[in-house]
């Protein structure tokens, strides 16, 4: 496995980002972000363990995207309806949900496919969130469809002249699908531009196929230039770079009501999914370790404190997973629930 192009120093980010770590966040915010990143990482580790112990059928998630996804969740204007931001996320977005205030135990429920899983009542894989109260539209397994659907919520925001924006995210491999082109075309029509923050988290893999095997373009963000939208490729493994790049892009979209394409170079620390073993990949940049080193250097948190936090969170989620194991599984007849929104009509009902 080649990862030579994947370190922060050789990624396009280091040369193109207008924001780097010379922008520093307040100590309180740094500590809050660290706590959320840690919580997200520990959550993913717990989910992987649950999978391995037979408490789930499949794992897919986002270890390696926390430095980017936590700032995203904190910067979102969270709420219900067009006045707030819509999020069209992918299945590596746990850290964003936690940053928005989701209960990590609910993610365990989805992993264990219990009837209490609030996101899908035992119907969908882990990491497939849905939260209407926060405008998080259901995450689906196809890697690209959100890029075709997101212009719709943005169009509603445009039509109602709301202050909300639409945020869509996907991976680098998904941009090979036509839906990504759809997103660029529909969001940038002259006189009908849409308030969309188009995100790509580039981990340089599509399952097992390396980036170079799928892409001729140097940077995915360059595709936005043809549509006249501002673009950037940044080091998504750096918390502060991510924060300021997201802030800048969101401010632009919020103010100008036009699209912005932001590509974040990230890591994929446990492979694509449980199908490839979900083992930790030691030769990619670990954004959490990197941020923790920074916090130590800045004397904001000691190694011992961080170790203690991690141990405590790990223990809490271990205990929670034991409780979740005892929660009821969905009843067989529940397959007929929620087929239609007006009533549970089914063809052939007696």
């Amino acid at each position: 496995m080649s990862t030579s192009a994947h370190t922060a120093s050789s990624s396009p980010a280091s040369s193109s980002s207008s924001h780097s770590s010379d922008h520093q966040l307040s100590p309180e915010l740094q500590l809050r972000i660290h706590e959320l990143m840690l919580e997200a990482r520990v959550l993913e580790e717990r989910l992987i363990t649950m999978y391995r112990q037979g408490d789930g059928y499949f794992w897919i998630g986002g270890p390696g995207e926390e430095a980017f996804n936590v700032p995203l969740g904190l910067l979102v204007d969270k709420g219900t309806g067009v006045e707030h931001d819509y999020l069209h996320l992918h299945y590596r977005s746990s850290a964003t949900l936690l940053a928005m205030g989701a209960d990590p135990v609910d993610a365990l429920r989805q992993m264990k496919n219990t009837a209490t899983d609030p996101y899908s009542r035992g119907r969908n894989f882990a990491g497939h969130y849905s939260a209407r109260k926060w405008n998080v539209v259901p995450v689906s397994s196809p890697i690209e469809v959100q890029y075709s659907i997101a212009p719709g919520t943005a169009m509603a925001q445009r039509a109602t002249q709301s202050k909300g924006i639409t945020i869509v995210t996907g991976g680098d491999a998904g941009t090979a699908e036509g839906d990504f082109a759809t997103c660029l075309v529909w969001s940038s029509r002259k006189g009908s531009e849409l308030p969309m923050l188009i995100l790509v988290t580039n981990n340089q893999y599509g399952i097992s196929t390396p980036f170079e095997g799928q892409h001729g373009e140097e940077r995915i963000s360059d595709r936005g230039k043809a549509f006249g939208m501002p673009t950037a490729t940044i080091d998504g493994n750096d918390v502060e770079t991510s924060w300021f790049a997201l802030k800048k892009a969101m401010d632009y979209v919020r103010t100008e009501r036009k699209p912005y394409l932001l590509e974040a170079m990230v890591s994929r620390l446990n492979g694509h999914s449980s199908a490839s073993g979900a083992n930790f990949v030691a030769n990619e940049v670990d954004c959490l370790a990197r941020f923790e080193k920074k916090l130590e250097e800045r004397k904001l948190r000691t190694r011992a404190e961080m170790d203690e936090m991690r141990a405590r969170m790990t223990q809490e989620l271990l205990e929670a997973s034991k409780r979740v194991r005892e929660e009821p599984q969905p009843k067989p007849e529940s397959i007929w629930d929620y087929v239609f929104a007006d009533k549970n009509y089914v063809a052939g009902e007696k």
Partner: protein
Amino acid sequence: MATMIQAIRMALHVGEERLGVTDIFGEDVGPPLGGAFTATQNLKTAWNSPLDERGIVGMAIGLALAGRRPVAEIQFCDYAFNTIDLLKIAGNTYWASAGDWNVPMVMMTPVGAGIRGSIYHSHSFDAQATRTPGWKIVMPSNPRDAYGLMLSAIVDPNPVMFLKPKALLRTKALPGEEIPGEPADLKTLSKMIDAPVGESRSRWKPEWPRLEELYVPIGKARTARAGRDVTVLTYGRNVPMSVSAADELAKEGVEVEVIDLRSLHPYDWDAIKASVQKTHRVLCVNEDTEVTNFGEHLIRRLVEELFYELYAPPKLLAGAHVPGIGLADNLEHASVPHKDGIKSALRELARHEP
């Protein structure tokens, strides 16, 4: 007395004026064309989309998620095949999110043969549509039902697919198929709502009749013709064709009952059952290709649930299972059901004794 295309246009007008429709869009749906068949002429919320069917369906889903009321058009159903995974998402979003998000959108698309449309303007979509759970599927056979089904589709909280039988779009309503509030005379109506061709069009404004709301319930069939000997289960273009075949057979002493399903999903099993228990003989007619056809589903259920009621093996008359519908008249004719074929099948069924 409207044509079906005028009826659809009037329903969309009522939709945007009174029922909260916010966006009527698709390829050439907005001005200047107002739709390839003029279904969306002079509607205030109609707009042109890029030529991107996946984008159209995605846009409709997104608008619906954000609380808008979209009616999206795919110009011909032949071009909806690359949207199937998005149609799947529209259909599964409410279910997958366990009731968190519903998708109140309408997708309309012209279907079927009958206009010499060759390989890419003649396809049917009912087999595909009914294989997409989570959608309601409707298909009118006359202007009044088109109007009433469209209003029901617009107010439905689920995704509803409105299949427009292409061959019937310009046919006039029959007595009894009036839309409440429309002028009785087709010429008068046409003058009021059909835009003139040519340069004067841009300055022209429609004068909409004072239409009343009429809701044809989704899931309810209509007996298009009553009879005691054989039941035809059909929809869309094949309804008037089957009624005409039945009228001719009546002269031979065979009384055929024609059930116009109107809704393919949910479908009106009670109406189907009642008719079959009366006639004991069934013919399903539709234009989609015959392998894995919606009529096959109806026959399977009839055989399972009403086997001992049947006096003859149920029969399906459907499109030939060939990759396309050829352009030449002979080819199109040989590919989809026609009145003569329906008559022969009905005669055969009527004669059959157990």
